[in-house]
């Protein structure tokens, strides 16, 4: 279980994360969503101890997480938004370095590396240096690196950014498998459908503050499960209805420029953030 307790992070006069409190339960697939600059990456960086909070604290299974907390950090593995790897190492070396940092036996590192590379279709490139890999391959390598150490808690900051649609679907399946092994996953993503497909609960944050926290279906229900899109002088405007018959009544009055559809998590997002997230 991870608890964020009144977590605040300031950079000079700018508050990136503002009094954020939430709990992620063991085995949960949890989404952290918000527009650019909402504070998602800063939050992940604080959980991974790269950044220290200005105030508040993070607890893992009840113990405070800081840079000295080796036993708590052993439970964590992170896939950062940037390719945080030595660019001059080969893929094999990146994996061995990770395994050694987590005190894994060399034999186990090599066996698991082989399995993960086969799974990720990277086996043919293992002697290639990171700087000579494509963006998608680097992303896959980071995922293999994170999974090598079999973490109890996996932090994913935009893990499928830059991946093609097929690779992204493969990644979803992999993450479902990982979560199925009772591992906790915290995911930040710009792909709203990704969060909707994968996450049991999502937190919507904006300007560093928690706006909403619930299951995707509950958030959609709260806004209204039915949406009517209307194109007018102000562009596309959506209205939300809890009841289908209300939506149909509105639609019949609205004329030809309106259409009915089911509300999505992206709608919740847009309403919450006040602008479209892409």
């Amino acid at each position: 279980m991870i608890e964020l307790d009144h977590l605040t992070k300031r950079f000079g006069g700018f508050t990136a994360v503002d009094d954020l409190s939430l709990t992620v339960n063991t085995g949960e697939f949890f989404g952290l969503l918000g527009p650019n600059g909402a504070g998602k990456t800063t939050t992940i960086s604080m959980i991974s101890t790269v950044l220290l909070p200005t105030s508040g604290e993070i607890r893992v299974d009840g113990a405070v997480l800081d840079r000295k907390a080796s036993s708590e950090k052993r439970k964590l593995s992170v896939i950062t938004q940037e390719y945080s790897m030595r660019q001059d190492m080969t893929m094999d070396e990146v994996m061995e370095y990770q395994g050694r940092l987590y005190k894994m036996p060399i034999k186990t590192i090599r066996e698991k590396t082989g399995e993960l590379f086969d799974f990720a279709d990277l086996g043919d490139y293992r002697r290639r240096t990171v700087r000579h890999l494509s963006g998608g391959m680097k992303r896959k390598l980071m995922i293999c690196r994170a999974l090598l150490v079999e973490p109890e808690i996996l932090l994913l900051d935009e893990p499928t950014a830059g991946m093609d649609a097929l690779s992204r679907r493969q990644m979803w399946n992999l993450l479902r498998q990982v979560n199925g092994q009772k591992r906790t996953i915290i995911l930040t993503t710009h792909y709203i459908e990704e969060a909707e497909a994968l996450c049991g609960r999502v937190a919507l944050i904006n300007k560093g503050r928690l706006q909403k926290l619930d299951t995707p279906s509950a958030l959609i229900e709260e806004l209204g499960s039915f949406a009517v899109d209307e194109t007018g002088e102000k562009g596309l405007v959506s209205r939300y209805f809890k009841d289908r018959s209300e939506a149909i009544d509105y639609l019949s009055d609205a004329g030809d420029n309106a259409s009915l559809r089911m509300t999505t998590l992206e709608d919740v997002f847009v309403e919450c953030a006040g602008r479209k997230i892409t």
Partner: protein
Amino acid sequence: MGIITVLWEKWVEFRRDFYKITVAAMISPLMYLIIFGMGIQTTSHGEPYLHFLIPGIVSMSTMTGSFSAIAQNMSVQRLYEKALDQVMVSPTPLWQYIAGQILGGSLRGLYAGGVILLLTLPIRTDLVFNALSVLILFLNGMVFSTIALTLSFLAKSYTDAPRYTAYIITPMSFLCNTFFSADQMPNGFRQVISLLPLSQTSSMIRSIANEEPPGAFGFIVLLIYLAVFALISTAFIYKKKNL
């Protein structure tokens, strides 16, 4: 053990860049030896100047070898590659990471000094280099590795590393007992220069080379530098809010 992991990482780096590292370690010291020691043939205290120069050049090489191995690499890893994040989130105790960097940097310095010693072997000088010399050079490398680590944590851009070399390493190379004795400096300046780590290392290496005891003062100075900068860099990695 985290120290072994860092030494393994340094070994991977060394193995891959062996030729580049070796050539880089040789060029400047070799130029100094050729120009000042062989080209401009002078004497110092009745001895060939080369006898004075070689201990200084070897000491200087361990300094530049250790400093550049850490300063450039850590700045790039922290600010550009973000590879330090991988270490920060791992369970490896961060003091072990720092200790590994210091030892790894020092070994690189020792390698650079060793290359220069090998190059000067054909020159018959009767200078003595023994196990104590190796220990002093290793200690010197540790001092400059910790200074490089501290500066790397202060760097705001990975282009700061060459600036640190220009501001710190280049002046020390020329002023700290390498090419001429710090005793010839004006009063006041001389005392400051003599307290710098390279001055003490060069002085001790030169004493041993001339079969004289190096004295304990130099060791104390080097150990103080090592302790201070090791503590600062360890405090940075544990306490710095935005690493």
